[in-house]
């Protein structure tokens, strides 16, 4: 009886300690202001003063940082740029990932297992190392340009451009697109395709009239699963992007570590979370629908 109670409460305890509490800390930080001190923000919560201390603390909290976010064009540009990067990469991921997932689902069970393994295998190597590897590929004298040189094609300067960021995002998030698509396509009843063929569809028509509409839950799951983390992505734009590649992850990093503006960094993070709540909620609803 006691154990059942613990099992029910444990996840909430976990969420409270590792999510709710840090989130409240960040929220509190976003309402403070910067000072030249350690830590570089005020007010500090002084519990030794009792109620009076708490009241004084709350009194000093301010929405000033949020006001700054809306007035500073850099933040707005950074938001829009992040959403644009994530949207473009999601579109490319769909175009690249769908044929891969569809192809995988057409093979026999044994081959399918092997292909699935191949999709998951990159996870066994450090994410950071894999992104560094792209620097070696994309740099001016890198593997890509050497290969182009052999083919007598003019070299491309991709590294430190927005294009490199898109390449990195598509590369890193491909499994997150392929796996949900594959899960939906692999379950698809073969007799539905046969029924479509029987009723006069060419293979292409059968795909567009039956397979594709039935895979839309997988399309939605894959798109959201990639889009949501890509908006806040830091490592890929930092390593592959140029100095003027604007993405929120980088903005937050700069505020924290270069400008020592912790309140601004926290406020950006809170706004990012607020923007992403809509797609996250959509994703949850989608998952609930797929499960039912």
């Amino acid at each position, binding site marked *: 009886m006691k154990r059942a109670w613990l099992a029910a409460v444990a996840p909430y305890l976990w969420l409270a300690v590792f999510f709710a509490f840090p989130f409240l800390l960040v929220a509190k930080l976003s309402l403070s202001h910067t000072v030249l001190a350690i830590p570089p923000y005020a007010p500090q919560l002084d519990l030794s003063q009792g109620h009076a201390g708490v009241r004084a603390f709350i009194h000093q909290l301010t929405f000033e940082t949020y006001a700054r976010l809306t007035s500073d064009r850099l933040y707005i540009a950074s938001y829009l740029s992040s959403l644009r990067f994530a949207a473009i990469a999601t579109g490319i991921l769909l175009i690249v990932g769908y044929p891969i997932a569809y192809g995988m689902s057409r093979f026999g069970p044994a081959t399918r297992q092997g292909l699935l393994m191949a999709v998951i295998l990159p996870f066994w190597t450090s994410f950071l190392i894999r992104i560094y590897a792209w620097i070696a590929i994309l740099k001016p004298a890198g593997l890509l340009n050497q290969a182009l040189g052999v083919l007598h094609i003019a070299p491309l300067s991709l590294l430190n451009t927005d294009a490199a960021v898109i390449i990195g995002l598509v590369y890193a998030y491909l499994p997150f697109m392929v796996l949900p698509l594959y899960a939906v396509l692999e379950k698809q009843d073969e007799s539905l395709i046969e029924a479509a063929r*029987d009723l006069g569809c060419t293979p292409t028509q059968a795909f567009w009239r039956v397979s594709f509409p039935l895979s839309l839950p997988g399309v939605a799951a894959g798109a959201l699963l990639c889009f949501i983390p890509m908006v806040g992505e830091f490592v890929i734009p930092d390593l592959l992007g140029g100095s003027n590649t604007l993405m929120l992850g980088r903005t937050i990093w700069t505020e924290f570590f270069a400008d020592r503006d912790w309140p601004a960094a926290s406020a950006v993070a809170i706004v990012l979370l607020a923007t992403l709540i809509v797609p996250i909620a959509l994703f949850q609803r989608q998952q609930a629908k797929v499960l039912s």
Partner: protein
Amino acid sequence: MTTGSPAPLVRFEGVARRFGDTAAVDGVTLDIAEGEFFALLGPSGCGKTTLMRMLAGFEAPDEGRILLAGKDIGGLPPHRRPVHMMFQSYALFPHLSVARNIAFGLRQQRMGKAETQARVEEMLALVRMEGLGERKPDQLSGGQRQRVALARAIAPKPAILLLDEPMAALDRKLREETQLELMALQRRLGMTFMIVTHDQDEAMVVADRMAVMRSGRIEQVGAPRQVYDHPASRYVAQFIGETNLFPEDQGWRSVRPEAMRISTDPADHARAGVVAEIAYFGDRTRYVVQTDGQKVVVSRANVGPPLPLALGDPVWTSHAADAGQLVTA
């Protein structure tokens, strides 16, 4: 071709299909006439489904030809054959409403909007589903789904409708009703139906003619009554209904249980035995009598005074000298 009899709608000519080393269909020659309700009957793995799938175009024969209205359709992909199939799983499109499922084949034929709608309404009425056109397949009962699958396959007016175990998923009472409805529907439409089933009762009830298959070959083709009364082989005699096989010089005499007599008095040529089983079915009683060397099954209509028999009672079983059918192998 014999004069007078019309050309068959479907002709299988020496058709064979192998999967690896095993021949699923092994040299089948068969004619199906226009307007006929034809049944392919056999146990699972006998090749009946493969034969049907070859007619639909989902499998290609390794040998032989398949003719539809005199034309070889071997090279035609499924979507170019005027043959529609009702799938065992029904294979209704879960993302489309009932009406759009039924309209699916019509849209592929590029039928106009008004005409399509009229045809869908007609089909819904035909399968008694009026007013349910906007439902999704998952909002229907098993029986309703079965009727939508039927309507969807009939709507584009195929030259022949293939039914793959259409009633396997229905419970017994619904199955019996559906069999009768299917027969009435086939007669009303005048459409050629070919049903694949492992259920011999089903085949006997619905079919004008049936083919009994075994290991990729056809054992016998004929009207249900003819196959039941005059089985061509010991296999057919045992597969269709129940029978007693009495060894004779050139084979066995197959005598149906209802042609057997049971008596408490010894008669000429009667076999003595004891009652081993009694099963009461209301309209008839089925006795199993253990005689010397074999069990004899007797079915007795429950008309007139009942036989005062109990388990273990000594009885005599017999049949008319010309009863049943002589079968070999």
